[in-house]
């Protein structure tokens, strides 16, 4: 059926003159939405103390069981967080994480939040276990983010009223 073959070539020919929709990652990085759930960050208070108190609620909420928290007690000489208790070990196994964000929801102190970074590939599985220092540090790679005024939803009433 020569007609069918020609029809096929016709489709090809039509697309030659169109704009490509392929994005040339990694040369071009498409901005993610502001609330895109990427790799976690641990946050600090303005005075430098860690917000995390090591309560393990994130580990309890985690459906893939990828968070490990070992707590210890703050002392006057060695104060890490604001309360009596801090996370001595805080590890997230990102090879297991499904980026559901339940840890962020469970956290009573907004200590853990999900950032926008998604470029997490490593050559070894062990390197995907993020320790507390890695999670506290600012990520080195940066991902472009869409305009938050345009795409982020306003702060919900239950958060702003109290």
């Amino acid at each position, binding site marked *: 059926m020569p007609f069918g073959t020609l029809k096929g070539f016709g489709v090809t020919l039509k697309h030659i003159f169109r704009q490509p929709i392929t994005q040339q990652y990694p040369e071009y990085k498409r901005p993610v939405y502001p609330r895109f759930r990427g790799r976690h960050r641990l946050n600090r208070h303005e005075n430098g103390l860690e917000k995390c*108190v*090591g*309560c*393990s*609620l994130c*580990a*309890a909420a985690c459906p893939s069981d990828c968070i490990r928290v070992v*707590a*210890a*007690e703050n002392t006057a000489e060695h104060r890490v967080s604001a*309360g*009596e*208790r801090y996370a001595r070990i805080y590890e997230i196994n990102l090879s297991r994480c499904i980026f559901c964000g339940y840890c962020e929801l469970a956290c*009573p*102190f907004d200590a853990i939040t999900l950032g926008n970074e998604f470029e997490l590939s490593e050559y070894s599985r062990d390197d995907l276990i993020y320790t507390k220092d890695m999670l506290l540090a600012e990520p080195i790679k940066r991902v472009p983010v869409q305009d938050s005024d345009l795409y982020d939803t306003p702060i919900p009433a239950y958060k702003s009223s109290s």
Partner: protein
Amino acid sequence: MSDLVKLTIDDREVEVAKGTGLVETAAAAGIEIPVFCYEPRLGPAVGACRMCLVEVEGMPKLQAGCTLTAQDGMVVHTASTSARAAEGQKGTLEFILVNHPLDCPVCDKGGECPLQDLTFRYGPGSTRMTFPKLTFDKPIPVSPLIALDRERCILCYRCTRFSSDVAEDEQLIARNRGAYSMIATFGDEPYRAPFSGNVIELCPVGALTSTQYRFEARPWEIQDVPTVCGLCPAGCNIRATTREGLVKRVQSRNHPEVDGGWLCDKGRFTFPHLRSDDRVREPLVRGTVGLEPVSWDAALDRAEELLRGAQGKIVTALSGSETTEIAYGLGVLLRRGLGAHSAVLDESTSAALDACRAPLSTIGAAELVVVVGDDEVVDRAPIVDLWLRKARRAGAEIVTIGARGSVPAPVGGAAEALRDLAAADSELGGRLRASDRAILVWSGSGGGGGARLAEAAHALGFEGKPGCAVFHLPARANARGVAEAWAAAADADEADPEPIGLLVVSGDEAAGDPSVRALAERASTVIAITMFHSLAVGWADLVLPATASLEREGTAMNLEGRVQRLRRAVTPPVPDELAWLSKLAERFGVALSPHAAVVFEELSGRIYGGLLLEQLGEHAGLPARRPYEAPEPTPLAHSPEANVPEDHFVGTLRLLRYTPLFSGHQVERVPELQFQRPEREVALSTVDADRRGIATGDLVSLRSNGTSVELRARVDARLVEGVARLADEHAAHLHADVEVVKA
């Protein structure tokens, strides 16, 4: 039936026995009355927390449900059917939470907290309280083991009630009034008592927490392993909380017949010895420069070499703290494989006690209890002390016969005292014979491992009366199970092992026993199976690492004669005893399974009449009494019966050593427990102290045979004349007769 009452709770009719509390009655009807302070084990309800408010028809005000008992025709409405009760309950919770800090993410109780749970179910969703909450210093160390957070306290008085009404140590008190009321120890002294840890478990909020468990784990990260404590012969049921392969805490697991849900501090707080620094983690062989670590293959080769080299001239020193299975395994290897039938155990055991056995809880219901022996009950089997206190509170008469008894007796005179009791003309004996609820307890060394006790009970006719029982408190946790398992492993008779070619020392208690050390002097080689380096250095040719009871799978027999199951809470850092025993047994051509369950099956057929592990369950039952057989001396014991004092020189006192509860290789390795250990002091009777011009607190010197020890004196009005009583660990090398002078 006149014993039953019928009442209506939330429109449901329920029939219960007369005298049942309303909380239990509601539970029987499937209705919850929430409580904080109510705990039947602490005695009468106090209604302190007001959480249990219910509406009772005919009563104008809301009532505290926990203080009521079920009455015939009563109509009760709980919060689920009565708006008034619901409002009252909500108000109660709001008041409780007014000063409660809500630091649940930090609090150790978070996740297993009754206040959290009940607030979630019954409480208001938010607070109206906008003022600053009351704050206190926190955490306050009530003792090195317990931290107190007064902000979290809801003043339910469970802890103070335990302290004053159960343990009767009267140390925790409520200070001040009203909102400033707070829990404290008397004079802010550390809470030093053998049962202090129970208040941690009783606290319905995170006010009293364990310093050992502080911030170690959350409830959703742990596994609880039901097992049995292996530190004293009572065999309290415990729950070992583990996280990431480590024991984090030990809690009681209520066995109403054995421990009633209480646990002593030794059982609760000694688990850190599992990760002590000087734990033996690999086999050690004596080389040119002391003990050198070797591989397991090399160690087993060396063990085989030593066992063969001794040519049957082997003596085994058993500890009595092994599981029954390990003792049986040792017996299979040494007796069947090598024909080495000689063994020593620190004390004798007696199966004759089975004729009058009963659950420990029988003591609580007794009307007359006679305790004979020179040791305090709390030092030997602490939980028995709580049962005795319970009996006394219920009106029982407790008679103690011994060096510190209400009826004074000379040291080592317990056996004689028992004979006197059993005699026809004894007044006390007559009352024992007449009573349906009489108990005899032997707390001390000697006595043929309970044989004397069994004879006395037989003479007093205890067998036919289920409320009458005898309890012998042995020094070692599983002495009887070990002795019976060793005896069951083979049939042959003991041959003379002299001169001793090899001494096999099984366990830490045996390794620390001076008489076993003396035996080792006569042996040409020594194999020590021990957990700690310090017990192995200097005398062993081969050291094989041992495991602790929390790391063992197996069974143990407690002082009642109850077979209970131990479960492995954590994997030990070394292969367990049965693993390498079975490998060694293979080399000597005898079959031994490395699995405790299989070994139990084999030995159960021989000594427990085919009892199955499944039959033991979580809460093992006590087998029925066995017909009385006159006890015969067990061949295993090497310890002398408590020797009767001979005439001593004028001016000397007889040394009465005792082993305190907080002593031993496990306790020594737990820094937090050190404050519980006995003071360096010697107790003297009033007469002896006066004669020497010694007062409490004076520094005295104890001398005998060229050695001397200096300690503080304490005048003990209860002590009999002519005795100096001090802890084993302070007695050092003193001989039986000591001269006491003011230093």
